[in-house]
C-alpha cells in the first residue's frame, strides 16, 4: 500500500454543541481531536470505535460535508463521496423520478442519470414497481432502489457508513457482493464498521477513534 496520498488529515477536531443558548453557557461534545493520518490511493481504511466516537462525523469531514473545527483536511485532487442510500427520496414520486433525482444529488449529471436508469432498474429488480410511487414500496424495496442508485457511482474515494445491510436476504447478498467488488477494484475506500470479521476481510488498515476522543469538554 505505498500508493499516492489522496487525502491528508492534519490535527482534525470536531465538536458538537450539546446544549446552550442565549442564557445558558454552551456545552460541547468533542467527537475527536488531533486526528492526523494520510489516506493512500487504492487502500481500504476501516474506522472503528464505540458509538459517539465520531466515525460518521469523520466520514462527513472527509466527504467535505462538514468543516472541521480544528485542523484541516487536504484533498490532493480526488473526488470523494459518501455512499448515501435513498438520498432525497420523495415518497409521492415514482421510482424512476426518485432514482433520477437521487442520482443527480449524488453527483451524476442529468445525462448520466438518465443513461443509468435502466441499469438501476435492472439491478434493483423492482420491475413494474419502478413506475409506482415510492410510498407504495416496502422498506426493503426502497432500500433496494436506494442501493442500486448509489451502486453505479465511482468516486476516487468512496466512504461507506455501515450501509451494507439492505433489503431481503438474496438482495443483501447481491449488494454485499457488489460492494465487495467495488471495495476491491482500484477504488480507495474508507469504511465504518462494527463487524470485526468484515474489517478483517476488507480492510488494509484500521483507525480506532475510541482512543482518540469522545471526551466531553466545557
Amino acid at each position, binding site marked *: *500500500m505505498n500508493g499516492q496520498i489522496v487525502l491528508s488529515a492534519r490535527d482534525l477536531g*470536531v465538536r*458538537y*454543541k450539546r446544549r446552550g443558548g442565549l442564557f445558558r453557557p454552551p456545552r460541547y461534545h468533542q467527537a475527536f481531536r488531533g486526528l492526523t493520518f494520510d489516506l493512500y490511493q*487504492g487502500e481500504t481504511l476501516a474506522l472503528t470505535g464505540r458509538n459517539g466516537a465520531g466515525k460518521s462525523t469523520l466520514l*462527513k469531514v472527509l*466527504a*467535505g*460535508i*462538514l*468543516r472541521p473545527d480544528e485542523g484541516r483536511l487536504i*484533498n490532493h*485532487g*480526488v*473526488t470523494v*463521496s*459518501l455512499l*448515501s442510500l435513498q*438520498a*432525497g427520496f*420523495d415518497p*409521492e*414520486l415514482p421510482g424512476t*423520478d426518485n432514482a*433520477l*433525482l437521487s*442520482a*443527480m*444529488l*449524488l*453527483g*451524476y*449529471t*442529468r445525462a*448520466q442519470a438518465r443513461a*443509468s436508469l435502466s441499469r438501476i432498474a435492472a439491478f434493483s429488480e423492482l420491475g413494474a414497481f419502478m413506475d409506482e*410511487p415510492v410510498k407504495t414500496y416496502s422498506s426493503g424495496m426502497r432500500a433496494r432502489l436506494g442501493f442500486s442508485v448509489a*451502486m*453505479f*457511482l*465511482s*468516486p*476516487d474515494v468512496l466512504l461507506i457508513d455501515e450501509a451494507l445491510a439492505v433489503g431481503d436476504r438474496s438482495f443483501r447478498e447481491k449488494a*454485499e*457482493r457488489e460492494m*465487495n*467488488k467495488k471495495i*476491491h*477494484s*482500484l*477504488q480507495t475506500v474508507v469504511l465504518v464498521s462494527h463487524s470485526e470479521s468484515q474489517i478483517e*476481510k*476488507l480492510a*488494509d488498515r484500521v483507525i480506532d477513534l475510541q482512543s482518540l476522543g469522545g471526551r466531553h469538554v466545557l
Partner: protein
Amino acid sequence: MAESLSPTPSPPPEHDRRLAPRDAFQWAFDAQAARQWQQAARRWATLRAVYPDHPPVWIQAAVALRELGSHDEARHLLAEARARFETHPGGWVQGANTALADGDTALAARLLEEARQRFPDDPPVWVRSAHLALATGDREGALRFNRHARDAFPEWAPAFDQHAELAMAAGDWDSARQRWAEVRRRFPDHPPGYRRAAEVEERQGRHREARRLRLAEEHGLDWLEESDPAEPPAVAPPRRRDGRNFIDLVWTKARLNLKSEANRNHLRYLWWVIDPLSYMAVFYVVFGLLLNRGGEGFVAYLLTGLVPFQWFAKTVQHASNTIVEGRGLMNQVRISPLFFPLVAVVQNAGKQTLVFLMLAVFLLLYGLAPTVHWLALVPVVLVQLLLMVGVGCGLAMIIPFVRDLINLVPTGLQFLLFASGVFYTLDTIPERWRDLFMVNPLANLLHQYRLILLDHQWPDWSQLGWLTLGCVIGLVVVILAYRRLEGVFPRVVVE
C-alpha cells in the same frame, strides 16, 4: 486421510440387532473429525470386535494409531487389512503413508507400486505416489504421477490441488498462481482454489489480491472475474458540481416537487388554479362588492398588487425554513446549501405563472387590454425574482442559527402586506413619506406593476435600476455568506 471408506456391502443377517455399519462407524469418524485420536483409536478397537469384516475398522484404526505415534500397531493393522481385503486400496495407501511417516521410503514405494498395479483406477493411489516421489526428492516422478491422476480423473479435485501444491513446494509462484486458477476454473466451489491461492499471493506480498481471493470464496468465481480491476468505473462524480449541473439539479428538484405536490391531491394540478382563484375571489367580494370602497377600478388595483405580493409572501415563507428542513439530505451528500431555498423559489415561480395568466385574463375581462407596455413586465418580474432569491436565501441562512425567527416570518409578511400599498393607493400617503415608502422594495415593485398594467405606462426605470442594484448587492452578500457557512450548516441544523 479419509479416503477409500466404502464398506463392503454385506446386508446384516435377519435377526441382527446391530447398527448398520455405516451408522456405527460414524461414532468413530466423529472422534477422528474432532482430532480426538485417542478416543478414535479406542472406538475403532471396539468396532473391530463387532464388525471385523469391514475395512474401515482396520484401516481407519491404523490412521488414528499413526496419529498417536503407535506406528508399529498401525503397521500391523494395515498388514492385516491388506490380507483381509485384497480389493480395497486403503490398506496399501495408508500402509504407504505410515511407512513414509516412519521414514521407511522403500516400504512405502513397494506398497504404492503394488497398489498402482492392483488398483490403477483408484485416484488416491496416484496422488499418494506423487506425494511419495516428492518426499524422496523425485520432482519429475511426482509430476508424472500427478499428471496421470489429472488425466485419468479430471473430475477429481485433489489431483489438481496437488498439481498446484507441487509448484508451491518448488517455490514456483507463477506456476502455482496459474495452477490454482485452473483449480478454480474446474472446481469453482472447491475452497482450496481460493484459500491456497490467497496464500500464494500473501507469500509474494500481494495482500490485496490475497484478500480478494478470500472474498471470492464467499461470492464465487463469477465475482472474481467481474471484479477484475481492469473494469472501468461506472459513473465518476465531479469534485464539485459546476454551475450548470447545479442549476439543472435545482430545476429538476423543483419540477419534481411540483409533481409530488400535485400527486398528493385528488384534483392534482387544478389546485394551482383553484387556490389563487378563491383567494382573489375573497378579496373581490369583500373589497369590491361588500365594502365597495376605493371607487372605480379598485378591484383591478387590488389584484395587481395582491398577486405579486402573494407570490413574494409564499416564496419567502416557503424558502425561510428550507435549510432546516434539508438537514437530512445536507448530511448525506455534499451540496451547496443554496440549493434548498433556490428550489423553493423556482417551485413557487412555477405555480405563479398560472396565477399571472389568470390575472391577465381578469384584466382583459375588466377592460384593461394588453398594451406594448406589458413587455416591461419581463424586467419587473425578473427583479422580483432577484428580490425573492435574496430575501429567501438570506432568511433561510439566518434561521438555522436563530430558530425562533421562524415564528416571526408570518408576522413580518403580514406587516409587509400593509406596508406595501396593496390596499391603498400611493396618493393616500403624505408627500413627505412617499420616498421612504418607496424604499420598501416590495412597495416599489407593486408600484411598477401598476404603472404597467393599470396606467399603461413604462415603469420608472431609475427606481427599478436602483432596486436592481440593491438586490444584486444583497444577493452577493448572501452568496458570500453561504460560501463561508457551507461546511457549518450540516452541523448547526442537527444541533
